[in-house]
């Protein structure tokens, strides 16, 4: 292999793929990134056999070839070297990198043991702007379950219908749902799958700064995400889909409420943070809905006691509830806009939180028993 490539493009491709390496002990080749020429582009691939990340960048290729490399040394070296074109050359399992007055030999591996990528079936797909899907995923990702007890809950549920795409996540204590409108001219009708958290994080990380259209190709066992081709840096993510049926979550969403409270999000979040300092071992704080205010109280016998209130627009009955303040905060952070509305039924049932203006996202939270 012999080629010239712009340093910043090469570095971008490495940083896109290197996150997904370095943890496999049974098959050490997986700790490497595969560097390979494909016609006039350079392709970098990493995989842990559940998720593959592929970055493609243009390069001046003089000799075809490939090599597997641990990305740490390579990226460390490139970060500190000047801008401009880099020469890459392989000699068996050694990669030569030459750049102005720098010259290095880095030990790599032959690629014969590097996994082959599963093929992508492009029959069923939908498209969505990268900015929209990455911000939507970040709104739901912190409600995904971290316990392996129910595997279906360890990913983000995508439910695609004729009119929209819903992203749902729950860890059985809280639930997030985001609704996105979709381009109806596309050929996916009713489709659903569970995207593993790792893949969701990889999508957020890789595409959030990109302003592009993303294609989601849905297959029986896997989903492939890629941006529109012929950009400077093309990124592709192939992920397995979590097996199993996602629970019938719609039963959880309360339809009617006895109390509605509208408050300023920023002020409320600040007070919760302060109250959290005085929460007990189970992270509990107490909220009391009164006539035109919301009071917050927390107490820890070893630390002290906290109370505050915030002016609120209240409709309906007075209420008192206990919540885990961490769950409350992460829900608030997911919500867009300055004002949020709390919809409450009873102190031991689900409470729904959403933005006053934007109704495409909501967060449902279960309280702590009194």
């Amino acid at each position, binding site marked *: 292999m012999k080629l010239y490539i712009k340093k910043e493009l090469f570095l971008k491709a490495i940083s896109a793929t290197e996150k997904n390496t370095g943890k496999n002990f049974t098959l050490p080749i997986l700790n490497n990134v595969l560097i390979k020429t494909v016609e006039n582009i350079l392709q970098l691939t990493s995989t842990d056999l559940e998720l593959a990340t592929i970055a493609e960048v243009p390069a001046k290729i003089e000799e075809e070839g490939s090599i597997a490399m641990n990305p740490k040394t390579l990226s460390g070296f490139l970060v500190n070297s000047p801008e401009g074109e880099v020469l890459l050359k392989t000699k068996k399992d050694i990669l030569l990198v030459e750049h102005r007055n720098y010259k290095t030999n880095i030990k790599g591996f032959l690629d014969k043991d590097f996994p*082959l990528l599963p093929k992508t079936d492009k029959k069923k797909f939908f498209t969505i702007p990268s900015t929209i899907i990455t911000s939507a995923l970040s709104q739901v990702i912190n409600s995904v379950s971290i316990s392996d007890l129910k595997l279906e809950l360890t990913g983000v549920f995508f439910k695609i219908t004729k009119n929209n795409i819903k992203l749902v996540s729950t860890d059985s204590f809280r639930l997030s749902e985001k609704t996105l409108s979709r381009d109806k001219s596309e050929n996916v009708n009713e489709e659903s799958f569970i995207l593993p958290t790792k893949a969701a994080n990889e999508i957020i990380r890789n595409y959030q700064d990109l302003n592009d259209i993303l294609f989601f190709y849905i297959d029986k066992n896997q989903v492939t995400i890629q941006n529109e081709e012929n950009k400077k840096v093309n990124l592709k993510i192939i992920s397995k889909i979590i097996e199993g049926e996602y629970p019938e979550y719609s039963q959880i969403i309360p339809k009617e409420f006895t109390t509605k409270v509208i408050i300023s999000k920023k002020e409320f979040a600040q007070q919760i943070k302060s109250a959290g300092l005085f929460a007990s071992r189970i992270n509990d704080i107490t909220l009391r809905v009164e006539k035109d205010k919301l009071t917050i109280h927390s107490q820890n016998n070893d630390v002290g006691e906290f109370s505050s209130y915030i002016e609120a627009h209240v409709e309906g009955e007075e209420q008192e509830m206990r919540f885990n303040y961490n769950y409350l905060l992460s829900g608030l952070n997911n919500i867009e806009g300055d004002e949020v509305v709390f919809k409450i039924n009873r102190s031991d049932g689900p409470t729904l939180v959403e933005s006053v203006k934007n109704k495409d996202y909501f967060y449902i939270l279960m309280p702590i028993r009194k």
Partner: protein
Amino acid sequence: MNEYDLWQVVLTEIEPQISKANFVTWFKNTYISSKKDGVVSVAVPNAFSREWLENKYTKPIMRSLRNTSRDIREIRYIIENKKPTIITAQNQTVEKRDIEETQLQFEELQIDSVTNLNPKYSFDNFVVGSSNELAHAAAISITKKPGALYNPLFIYGGVGLGKTHLLQAIGNTFAQTRKKVLYITSERFTSEFITSISNQTIDSFKNKYRNKDVLIIDDIQFIAGKEQTQEEFFHTFNTLHETNKQIILSSDRTPRSIPTLEERLRSRFEGGMLVDIGYPNYEMRVAILKTKVKSKNIFLSEEVINYIANNIQKNVRELEGALNLVIASSKLNNNETNLEQAKKILSHITSKPNKPISYKKIFKTVSDFYEIEEKSLLGKNRKREIVLPRQIAMFLMRSELKASYPFIGERFGGKDHTTVMYACAKIEKEVNTNHNLEQEIGLIKQQIYSD
């Protein structure tokens, strides 16, 4: 040689040919999923394994397969994972302890999305007593010989007595032996049926119900009056019954007392075994409370338990409600609840005076129960379907309201008091001999007093 052994032979032959890392990575969790007409389907855990085995190892795999079994022509790779062992209620409670019982969860998510079963119901936490031991014994015996003994098993009894618990316990027992189980209420069956008609997915609806090993339908009485659903259910029932698949049904009354139930369904429901669950007696109520207390890992004194059992006599659900109230207050005050406190906490439940009931309430409940119009109950129609409810209504006015015979006669459109006397005597006599009638009247009374 079976598929498992065949694959073991392949693995032993391939292992020395490749590096250990490769072997472990690519052959872990692989197995032969099926072997038919010379085509072997190899199950692999993910798409990467499929790609790799297909491209790199098909030749050696084929070679060693053909060494043992010459007729193999083709290998297919499919992505399939063996199902993890079913999570039982016990496993789950271990996990729950960590966060104690304080952080509440969405209960709906505990329900298994394939079988609709809630793992919290099991035979272990079902309290058996004289009022339900027959039902329990029948349930246990069908879990041992599904489809063979009592098919269908029809369990009936009033609200909050444990029908659903028993049904789900049967389902969970089957689910653990990897039988295809489906639990559903008849209401949901109906609404899914309607959706499938409007979405034109009737075939997948049929498939869903007809390929089960065990079908459990709760509250089957709600199917009454829905003709097309009954028709569909009739065929589902027959398909399953003919292939000896177990069917379990529950209802708040006997098939005979479900009005507007088609005759052919009625006779099928009665063709298996009919068992009832009755009201728990004092000893059983104490036993139920003790089991609940134990499962919640708390302590409650004997006298408090006895007090609750003595004063809440209706159904198990209310018994549990009262218990929860007492527990909640003892947690709140951080001390053990004594008898005096328990009395105070439960005072608003136990001392609730019996709301006076009116004869109008009796008319309404009886006519609702038998699905006849109140008008005809009070009219002169002498059809059997009308006469019996009319006599029951008279009987109830006499026994519950202590109304005089002439008063009752007057309310029924000026009937003679001897007619009323005859009716009351007749029902009273029949109640003692006819168990079904006794049950029905019990249910009607329960509804009269329920709110």
